[in-house]
């Protein structure tokens, strides 16, 4: 049902604005309407929110995996918000020094990146000097001399022998010292007289010697390496300290989340302030509220101040009124489907209760397996019963509970149980087999035409229902003439065509001619009424004739329902194939084959349920949106978005 709303204007003194807004935010049923286009500029709060968000994102990386049992894990996946009561929320807001924590987090982040950078730098340096770390010599001393110079480098072990022998023979005034051997390379320091430099360079190049350039260090390599090591140790100690600090900050994540949401609520409140009109002493706030909650709202405000006025404003023609759908328990579960499409307009009927029976039935035909329906229903029931979920999430699973139950019954009629052909059930289970065979009325795999006809008839029935809803709605809204002339001829014509088809295929015992005249009467009825809006009398009849073309639209709508058969067949045939593959596996190998076939059965059927439940859901939904809704509604209504405390991370629970 589209809930009736009142457009109201709250006027009070400015000093009460904050309190009243606080009340409205807790009240959570007031849709704020812009009085003037407020400058939604930057708020100081934006900066603080960004800071809290940064801290949260940073700390998240250091959170350790908590040990949770399956139940807790599942609950978290389905409903990740933290539940908190008002008392604890207020406590956190007033006593938690979040600004200090954020500063600490920011500092830890800067320190961490600095120290990590230093450690990385030292590691690279150490890697370079590693082969020469035992060289107890300050090479800068050699550089200072007039006649001597040196080269550092490495050579592959394969060439080492040749290199050493050759060097000794070919070049004079040279001192070679092997410093280390790492993997397949030998590292050397070569000190030489400057006058042989050119010969040496040439020789080195010919003998696969690779030079290493190291930065000047003004001390011995040995000392330098030791110094690096110590430096690293210091930095690592600091890193540990920082990590410890961060570990101490991690437990604040939950509290920071509360602060994050709270800051966002404050920001939303500021935005509402921007939307209200103000004089020097008063403010006025426009908005929508449920008719039934208006008194509650008045009461709440009168508790804050006596200086207030709530005006009920008339609704102008053509004004956009926000839409709030409210349905009785069972139907409300199917609002999920309506919400995918969007809201109806304010003066249109809520399609939810009308789509419910069709949606359930169509989904069941598309999934079409009793076993699968049972699995869906049991899974949903398990989630609803055993996980502590908020109402909103429960709705969704209750929807699947209904769908699963319906699928179970339809699947039983189709005789499809996990794709098993019930005729093949062994004699030892004869009573079960006989019972299942007895309730099996339709076999879509062997006789698809039967189900095709059922699908199309269901389609026509839904189209007729849609037209009837429109007729009823127009009559209810005192547009009796329009309703009757617009819809009754079509309802009559479509029904008579249905009767004609039924009688000509000997389904209905009726003289063929009678049905023929019925159709003819319907067509004349349509021609006479549908052109009535034309002004000229000469146009009325041609426009009526042209409107008969609408039959093609109804025909294509009807054919669209054939998807019910196709999707149903897809499920049952894939299920059979899975059983077949499992059978082949079990016959191929002993023991292992049986295990493998079990795996195929479980994974295969779960996959089939998943993919076909998805298909069943979207195609049944599409039939509502594309074939059903346009018969009686336009849609495109704006949603009722109350000003309330809705958090990204937390949900407030009332303990009363």
């Amino acid at each position, binding site marked *: 049902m589209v809930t009736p709303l009142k457009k109201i204007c709250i006027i009070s003194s400015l000093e009460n604005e904050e309190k009243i807004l606080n009340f409205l935010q807790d009240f959570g049923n007031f849709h704020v309407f812009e009085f003037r286009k407020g400058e939604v500029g930057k708020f100081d709060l934006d900066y603080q929110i960004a800071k809290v968000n940064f801290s949260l994102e940073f700390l998240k990386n250091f959170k350790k995996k908590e040990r949770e049992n399956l139940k807790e894990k599942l609950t978290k996946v389905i409903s990740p918000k933290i539940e908190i009561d008002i008392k604890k929320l207020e406590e956190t807001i007033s006593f938690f020094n979040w600004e200090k924590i954020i500063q600490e987090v920011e500092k830890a982040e800067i320190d961490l990146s600095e120290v990590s950078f230093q450690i990385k730098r030292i590691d690279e340096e150490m890697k370079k000097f590693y082969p020469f770390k035992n060289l107890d010599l300050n090479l800068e001393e050699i550089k200072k001399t007039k006649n001597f110079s040196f080269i550092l480098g490495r050579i592959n072990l394969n060439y080492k022998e040749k290199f050493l022998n050759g060097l000794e023979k070919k070049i004079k005034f040279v001192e070679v010292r092997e410093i280390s051997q790492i993997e397949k390379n030998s590292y050397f320091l070569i000190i030489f007289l400057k006058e042989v430099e050119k010969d040496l360079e040439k020789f080195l190049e010919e003998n696969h010697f690779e030079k290493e350039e190291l930065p000047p260090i003004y001390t011995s390599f040995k000392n330098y390496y030791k110094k690096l090591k110590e430096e690293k140790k210091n930095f690592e100690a600091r890193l540990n300290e920082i990590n410890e600090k961060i570990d101490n900050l991690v437990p604040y994540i939950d509290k920071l989340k509360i602060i994050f949401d709270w800051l966002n609520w404050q920001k939303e409140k500021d935005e509402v302030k921007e939307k209200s009109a103000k004089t020097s002493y008063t403010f006025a706030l426009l908005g929508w509220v449920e008719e039934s909650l208006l008194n509650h709202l008045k009461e709440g405000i009168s508790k804050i101040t006596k200086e207030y006025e709530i005006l009920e404003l008339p609704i102008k023609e053509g004004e956009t009124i926000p839409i709030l759908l409210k349905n009785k328990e069972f139907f409300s579960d199917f609002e999920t489907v309506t919400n995918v499409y969007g809201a109806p307009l304010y003066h249109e009927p809520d399609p939810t209760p009308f789509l419910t029976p069709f949606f359930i039935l169509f989904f069941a035909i598309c999934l079409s397996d009793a076993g699968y329906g049972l699995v869906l229903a049991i899974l949903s029931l398990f989630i609803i019963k055993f996980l502590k979920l908020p109402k909103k999430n429960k709705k969704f699973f209750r929807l699947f509970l209904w769908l699963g139950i319906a699928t179970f019954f339809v699947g039983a009629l189709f005789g499809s149980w996990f794709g098993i052909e019930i005729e093949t059930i062994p004699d030892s289970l004869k009573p079960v087999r006989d019972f299942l065979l007895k309730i099996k009325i339709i076999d879509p795999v062997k006789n698809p035409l039967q189900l095709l006809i059922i699908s199309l008839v269901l389609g026509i029935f839904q189209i007729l229902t849609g037209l009837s809803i429109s007729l009823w709605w127009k009559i209810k809204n005192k547009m009796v003439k329009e309703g009757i002339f617009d819809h009754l001829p079509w309802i009559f014509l479509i029904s008579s065509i249905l009767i004609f088809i039924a009688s000509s295929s000997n389904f209905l015992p009726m003289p063929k001619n009678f049905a023929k005249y019925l159709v003819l009467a319907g067509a004349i009825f349509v021609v006479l009424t549908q052109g009535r809006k034309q002004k000229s009398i000469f146009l009325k009849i041609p426009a009526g004739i042209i409107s008969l073309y609408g039959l093609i639209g109804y025909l294509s709508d009807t054919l669209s329902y054939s998807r019910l058969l196709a999707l149903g067949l897809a499920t049952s045939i*894939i299920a059979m194939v899975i059983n077949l593959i499992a059978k082949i596996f079990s016959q191929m190998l002993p023991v292992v084959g049986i295990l493998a076939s079990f795996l195929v059965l479980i994974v295969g059927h779960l996959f089939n349920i998943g*993919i076909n439940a998805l298909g069943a859901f*979207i*195609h049944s939904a599409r039939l509502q949106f*594309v074939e059903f809704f346009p018969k009686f509604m336009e849609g495109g209504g704006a949603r009722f978005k109350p000003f309330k405390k809705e958090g990204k991370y937390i949900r407030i629970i009332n303990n009363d």
Partner: protein
Amino acid sequence: MIKTMEIGLILTIIGAVLAAGLAGIGSALGVRLVGEVASGLVAEDPEKFGKVLLLQALPGTQGIYGFLGAIMVMQKIGLLGGGIKSISPEVGWQILLACLPVGVVGLISALLQAKVAAAGVNIVAKKPTESGKPIIFAAMVETYAVLGLLVTILLLNGIKVG
């Protein structure tokens, strides 16, 4: 020399191959396209994974329909057990043709559906609360794959073997 009965069998198998092959290729390409676009979004916002995964799965159904058609053919000619039936060339041609709707329509509709689904990733990115709508958009394209499958099933159902 190939015997005429064997020609019938070969034609039938070509039909099954076309049904599963064409539709499978379409789905593979389609799922890839949506997957690429979705990765871009998930890199920014990993929490939307579940929502875009549904979109990615949509162009994958054509492959399943094609597979289904192929299996129905195999079952019809006894390739899955029960002994291969003898098939005349005429019946072979009939089965081959019956396989084309699910194969060809599957191939093309999977590609086109993937484009719609990939565009729908945008909606999920910008308006997460409306993530049901792109799924319906993509399902509009899938209608024709479903109809193709339906025609194949009905045709195969009508063809008499042996």
